[in-house]
């Protein structure tokens, strides 16, 4: 693939320490609009840390982030959101005590009037419920009672809600950390379809996954990390599966 | 009257209320005296209420309100603090006569009568008495009661007024009228000031605790311990010579005179505005009269 336009999201020289652990060591990453980038690597390779830095959960110790060619600072989940980046976290980050609509809009409730400080605004609960119901039905997630709290829902339903939430609000970049780990075959397929749809709508997508099948099926490009460094980049295909695995596992694997 | 049988006997029975502060022997003695009066007077029905602690204003107020609801004609009440006066105003406005027992509400004019010990006077009595027992220039300690309780504070205030500067007060911790806290405080005082000559307390339980500390320090009889209330345990200790003295109040007298006054007031008879039930120093010499 050849990209005349600058990448939707690019990070260069990303470095991050936790105490004495060097979790990221000068990593470069770029993803374009309409592209699915798979982020691969063994447990502890630094994948979640890297996307944490892109979604504002962690702050980079070193490195620069550009969006559509412009330098940006991502210092908090709020700034990430403001830049149109949405994330599905490994632990889903759902509110078990709230219903799907409240989960969808947590932290960005539709409310007014505008002249009031955000916290004091009156929520448009109908509007929020409406959009949520529509998105979930488009995703064909069978949720019998949309007003039940998500804590009562099955693992598959919960993952679907988290994915749908990110899909709805990302204007530019969607990041998914192992979005199909707990899903069955059918549910995984739906998520893969959704990712493809988002790509076709021009969003840039970063997916972390340990499932090589899924990576081969959906990713336009794969970037492999080991011990906090980028160790390779390939176009995933059934033919170079072994090569990818050996990049992940490293020389001693 | 015997409340189980005659409570519905019609207008000939006069319904009056007795409210006491909280469950300790002092008020039990008072309540017992009133129950005796109740049993002896078929034309009077007494209903009872009691708070949870010596400072339970809220509880006492709730009981006052409930007694108004139940149409009592008079209330005899031991006020926990001036703060209950607003509720008592309501009672007066509802035509109920109010008699204060045990202590006054300074400046409150709604009462028909006050049947009480003067706690300030009791404290003065103790101060005068102790000033004669300790050598000039010695050290003494005071065990306060529960901070914020006016009658307990008065006992300390009165004591200081008459005791004057006969001795230095080296410590005056609050004990919440709690036995254990009295013991702990006395232990610490006797450690920090082994030569302390006397201990005076605003209520009985911490004094009972303090006696244990004095005993453990091997100074029984050597430290002059003076309490307030002359509770049964104190009387035992005075008889045994462990405690020197205590200021006695007369709760039974307060109870029977209090309820009698309330009944009189409710019947429209004239009552004295102050009935002083008096205080007296209990010492080894006269303790037999109190036991």
């Amino acid at each position, binding site marked *: 693939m050849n990209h005349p336009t600058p990448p939707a999201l690019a990070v260069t020289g990303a470095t991050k320490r936790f105490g004495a652990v060097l979790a990221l060591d000068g990593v470069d990453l770029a993803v374009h609009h309409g592209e699915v980038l798979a982020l691969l690597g063994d447990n502890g390779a630094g994948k979640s840390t890297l996307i944490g830095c892109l979604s504002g959960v962690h702050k980079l110790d070193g490195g620069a982030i550009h969006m559509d060619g412009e330098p940006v600072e991502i210092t908090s989940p709020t700034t990430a959101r403001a830049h149109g980046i949405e994330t599905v976290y490994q632990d889903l980050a759902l509110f078990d005590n709230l219903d799907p609509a409240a989960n969808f809009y947590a932290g960005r409730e539709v409310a007014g009037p505008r002249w009031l400080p955000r916290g004091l605004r009156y929520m448009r*609960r109908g509007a929020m419920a409406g959009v949520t119901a529509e998105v979930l039905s488009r995703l064909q997630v069978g949720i019998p009672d949309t007003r039940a709290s998500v804590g009562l829902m099955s693992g598959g339903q919960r993952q679907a809600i988290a994915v749908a939430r990110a899909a709805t609000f990302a204007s530019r970049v969607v990041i998914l950390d192992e979005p199909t780990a707990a899903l069955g075959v059918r549910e995984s397929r739906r998520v893969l379809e959704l990712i493809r749809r988002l790509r076709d709508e021009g969003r840039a997508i970063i997916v972390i996954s340990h499932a090589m099948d899924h990576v081969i099926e959906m990713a336009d490009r794969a970037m492999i990390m080991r011990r906090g460094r980028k160790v390779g980049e390939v176009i995933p295909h059934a033919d170079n599966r072994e090569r990818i695995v050996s990049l992940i596992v490293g020389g001693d694997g | 009257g015997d409340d189980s049988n005659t409570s519905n006997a019609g207008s000939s029975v006069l319904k009056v209320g007795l409210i006491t502060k909280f469950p300790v022997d002092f008020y039990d003695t008072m309540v017992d005296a009133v129950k005796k009066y109740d049993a002896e007077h078929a034309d009077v029905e007494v209903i009872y209420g009691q708070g949870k602690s010596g400072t339970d204003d809220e509880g006492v107020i709730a009981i006052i309100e409930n007694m108004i609801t*139940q149409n009592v004609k008079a209330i005899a009440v031991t006020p926990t603090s001036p703060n209950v006066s607003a509720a008592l105003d309501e009672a007066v406005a509802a035509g109920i006569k109010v008699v204060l027992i045990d202590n006054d509400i300074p400046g409150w004019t709604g009462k028909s009568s006050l049947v009480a010990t003067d706690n300030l006077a009791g404290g003065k009595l103790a101060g005068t008495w102790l000033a004669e027992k300790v050598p000039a220039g010695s050290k003494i300690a005071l065990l306060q009661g529960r901070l914020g309780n006016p009658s307990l504070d008065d006992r300390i205030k009165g004591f200081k007024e008459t005791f004057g500067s006969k001795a230095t007060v080296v410590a005056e911790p609050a004990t919440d009228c709690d036995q254990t806290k009295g013991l702990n405080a006395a232990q610490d005082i006797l450690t920090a000031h082994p030569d302390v000559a006397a201990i005076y307390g605003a209520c009985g339980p911490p004094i009972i605790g303090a006696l244990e500390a004095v005993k453990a320090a091997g100074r029984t009889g050597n430290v002059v311990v003076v309490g307030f209330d002359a509770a049964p345990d104190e009387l035992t200790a005075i008889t045994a010579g462990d405690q020197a003295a205590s200021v006695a109040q007369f709760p039974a007298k307060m109870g029977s005179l209090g309820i009698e006054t309330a009944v009189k007031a409710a019947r429209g008879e004239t009552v004295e505005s102050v009935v002083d039930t008096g205080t007296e120093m209990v010492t080894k010499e006269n303790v037999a009269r109190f036991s």
Partner: protein
Amino acid sequence: MADTDNVLAARRPPWRFDAPQLALTTIRIGPGLMLVAVVIAAASLSPVFLTPRNIGNVLSQSAVIAVLALAQLLVIITRGIDLSVGSTLALSAVVGALVFSSTPSGPLVVLAMLATGALVGAVNGTVFVWGRLPHPFIVTLATLSIARGLALWLSGGQPLQGMPQIVRDIGGGSLGWFPYSGFLVAGLALLGLLLTTRLVWGRWIYAVGGNPDGARRAAVPVNRVVISVYVLSGLAAGIGAVITSGRLNGGSPTFGELAELDTIAAVVIGGASFLGGRGTIANALVGALMIGVIRNGMNLLNVDAFLQPIVIGAVIVLAVELDVVRGRVEQRLRVMKAAQT
């Protein structure tokens, strides 16, 4: 609700008689059922209980616990606890009385009480959040002690007499038999309802309690939300001080002793959970009223003072146990209903 209903109307089957749904709706009233049971018991044991005058008494006797419980609920929804409410109430009352002794201005006195409460709450919240303490138990236990000490020190240990007319009206006045403090509680409850169900901030309170870490990642201002509930709890203690001072026409350093246990009990009777994220304004009110009704009923029935704590303890545990059973029945009904569809 109305909005939601419109949107979902299309996908709902037309109304038909629906026994499990009906049972479910009834049983969801939850702790309210227990309150009704207690009221019926009290009314049948005492003829005076249901007189307007006594109802007025119950309301004014419960008002302070109710106000404190409304705010304690918010604290508990965020997984917290505020042990300092009773002492803060005392401190606010004493400050109010002192202000009154130097100015006759009613509004100034009220303002001083509210500000004192909010200030203690702000200390609780900020020390907890910025000190990164593992649990608010410790800091609110400390302010329990400190606020009481300050109240004693400022007042010289004396109850201070006198309150401006506006305070006396709020605490002790009534419209017919209905106490003004009852209106105040109702007003605050409505505000609480607005906050918890309609305003963004209320939604955030639930989000923080349900998943603090998730809330942070969802760009909810978690620290500010947590601090705010302690400020509100302190403010509620200030309002409680206004009511108490008005009722008692003065401020005393001994006000509000053990109020923390009553308010927490009210909130928990109302079905909130220490694990956070759960609980409603209506049920917290029910819990406060339940305690008030039991106390009042025992006074009316002239229950022995020694027995009162026994009865209260037993009724509290019974109410919560019944709510556990109710919850399990609700669960079963829910499953039955799900099976229908």
